[in-house]
């Protein structure tokens, strides 16, 4: 079992964005930027993938940032410091390829800011000039602004509704950056599928290499089940082992978006049931902590 050693709420309470720090020395020691874990909160739980946003190899801990969007993430959000997570498997996925490209634009949309943060950090450390663009639907949902500023040479912020800094999508800001005289060598974009799709369309027309991190439904995340398959350059790839990062210009985003809706109906059932009767699962977690 894996103990939660720190927990904080990012932004406003109602937005349900959490940061938790988990005690897992081996993962903390071996993980690289771009990798993720799969966790299961309790014995009845499903296996959900979450990106490793930071790690402290000395303290033996790593950090997750997630948004409570369905039953599993809601339940995880309710867990507190000292609680134990049943299973954590990781690090998973291929690490981001980090080298000195020159100028790199790192784009994070919504909760995607969390996974782009370690990449921006690593890119800057490798000697790149890092221009970061972060955006969210509104001010309350914008996370990790200060962390991103530290990880970048320049930070540009936008909100969909204009409630903070400026109105517009991250893609609008990217177009402006592209129109500057300076050459861009690489774009890294992580966020909702529609965002990654639009960004990839833009950079394709300018011939700028673009990396996106895909978030298909996953189950085992060891390459055994194939549910995470995505089409990249006309070929089927398993995102959990071949990715999660791929060349954005080659990804079939339409297929990914569609496949993400597979269990929409069931997810609603699970959330409804949980909202009406959270006690049974929460008791299970309590029991789990007793045994520890």
């Amino acid at each position, binding site marked *: 079992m894996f103990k939660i050693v720190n927990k904080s709420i990012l932004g406003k309470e109602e937005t349900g964005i959490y940061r938790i720090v988990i005690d897992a020395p081996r993962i903390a020691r071996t993980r690289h930027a771009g990798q993720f874990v799969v966790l299961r909160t309790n014995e009845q739980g499903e296996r959900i993938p979450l990106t490793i946003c930071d790690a402290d190899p000395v303290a033996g801990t790593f950090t997750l940032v997630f948004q409570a969007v369905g039953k599993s993430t809601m339940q995880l959000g309710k867990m507190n410091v000292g609680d134990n997570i049943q299973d954590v498997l990781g690090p998973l996925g291929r690490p981001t390829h980090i080298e000195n490209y020159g100028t790199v634009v790192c784009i994070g949309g919504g909760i995607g800011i969390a996974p782009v943060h370690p990449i921006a950090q690593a890119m800057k450390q490798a000697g790149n000039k890092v221009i970061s663009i972060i955006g969210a639907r509104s001010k309350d949902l914008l996370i990790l602004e200060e962390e991103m500023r530290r990880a970048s040479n320049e930070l540009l912020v936008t909100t969909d509704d204009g409630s903070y800094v400026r109105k517009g999508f991250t893609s609008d800001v990217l177009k402006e950056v592209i129109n500057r005289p300076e050459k861009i060598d690489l774009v890294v974009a992580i966020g909702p599928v529609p965002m990654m799709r639009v960004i990839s369309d833009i950079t394709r027309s300018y011939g700028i290499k673009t990396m996106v991190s895909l978030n298909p439904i996953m189950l085992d995340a060891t*390459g055994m089940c194939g549910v995470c398959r995505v089409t990249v350059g006309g070929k089927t790839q398993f995102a959990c082992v071949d990715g999660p990062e791929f060349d954005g210009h080659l990804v079939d985003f339409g297929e990914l978006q569609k496949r993400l809706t597979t269990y929409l109906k069931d997810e609603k*059932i699970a959330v409804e049931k949980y909202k009406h009767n959270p006690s049974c699962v929460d008791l299970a977690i309590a029991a789990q902590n007793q045994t520890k």
Partner: protein
Amino acid sequence: MPKEKIQRQKMPEQKPQERIKNFNEVPFGYSAEIAMKEANRCLQCKKPLCVKGCPVEVAIPEFVKLVSEGKFVEASRKIKETNALPAICGRVCPQEDQCEKVCIVGKKDKPVAVGALERFVSDLERNNNAIKIPDIPEKKNRKVAVVGSGPAGLTCAGDLALKGYDVTVFEALHKSGGVLVYGIPEFRLPKVIVQSEVDYLSMLGVKVETNMLIGRIATISDLFNEGFSSVFVGTGAGLPLFLHIPGENLIGVFSANEYLTRVNLMKAYLFPEYDTPIIRSRRVAVVGAGNVAMDSARTALRLGAEKVYLVYRRSRDEMPARIDEIHHAEEEGIDFQLLTNPIEILGKDGYVRAMKCLRMQLGEPDDSGRRRPIPIKGSEFEMEVDIVVVAIGNGPNPLLLRATPEIELNQWGNIKADTETLATTKKGVYAGGDIVTGAATVIAAMGQGKIAARSIDRFITT
């Protein structure tokens, strides 16, 4: 009374109409009385052919004799001298191709039900808490790592523990047992049985570390650096093969691995009690005809499907599944569409709507000696289904092997291991089970686990 007069004893089982509504085990097993009656059919051959038919050479006449005398626990212990997992093998071995195939009684009559007897005595031993821990020789103070907790890994770990080694099993999933827990369904192999085998290993002092994907969290070289003297790789054949036909990424197309894992490992049939969902559909097509296909088709029925097709491009004679499974599937009403080959999956709004197939006929024998199926011109038709489960086989998962280039692979991506010792091309690393042989059987994987344990012992002590 001449022995041949006794008929082979049938195992009582759940009625088909009942059992397709639940996930409980289908056969109930023998009673003591039936078991003794069946054991009496054995001729106690001086040169027992049956033993040659068993990959781990279970002492069949000896244990069957003990059964006929009512010494059930002793019988179980006799089997365990060469087979550590009899409750599992009794249920899933393809007996008709192994021990029972060559049984002399089978020449004129039906063979002795070796598998059913094996199952009976080991269940009895377990249910009476009569499982005995053998004496373990002095600890050797040397560590061995086993990667993968399928039948190959578990057997290798058990044998090494019995030789006094300090064994740690590393398993990627959150539960150990390999295909026995994530693939083979509850109604065929209850998970409490697998768990009890794993618990038995713990009693022998084997440590099991789940949630450890070797190749990512640690490489094999890391394991040596951490003080392990030798490593056994038993990672199985866990890479799902797809048909590579149009429409395969539509919603509703599953690999059998995904379909079965959701149901078995994650208990999706208990959703929303358990959080993992699965598509419950009305009409299902399962492609393939091995055990994996039968398991998927019968699982679909139990999830409430009204119609389940099993689509196979060859004929009945070539179906690779165990005979019991084929019978059970037919009894339950699975519709076998033989000599039929899928060529496209058709969708509507991203969801499966139908599968387009061609009828086939058998031509000349191919490389495998089986008659090659050839398409019949103009025989195209659409099978209306809402999910498709692809169960055409599994290849080796490349993850660990990509991280360990020193281990040489053959042309199919399986590990090249010495046929005698199961040594790989990396010093101190041995391999066995499906990762070496390609998808095979539980008992074959166990047999290799045993050989590797012997080789590892020799490697460390010499």
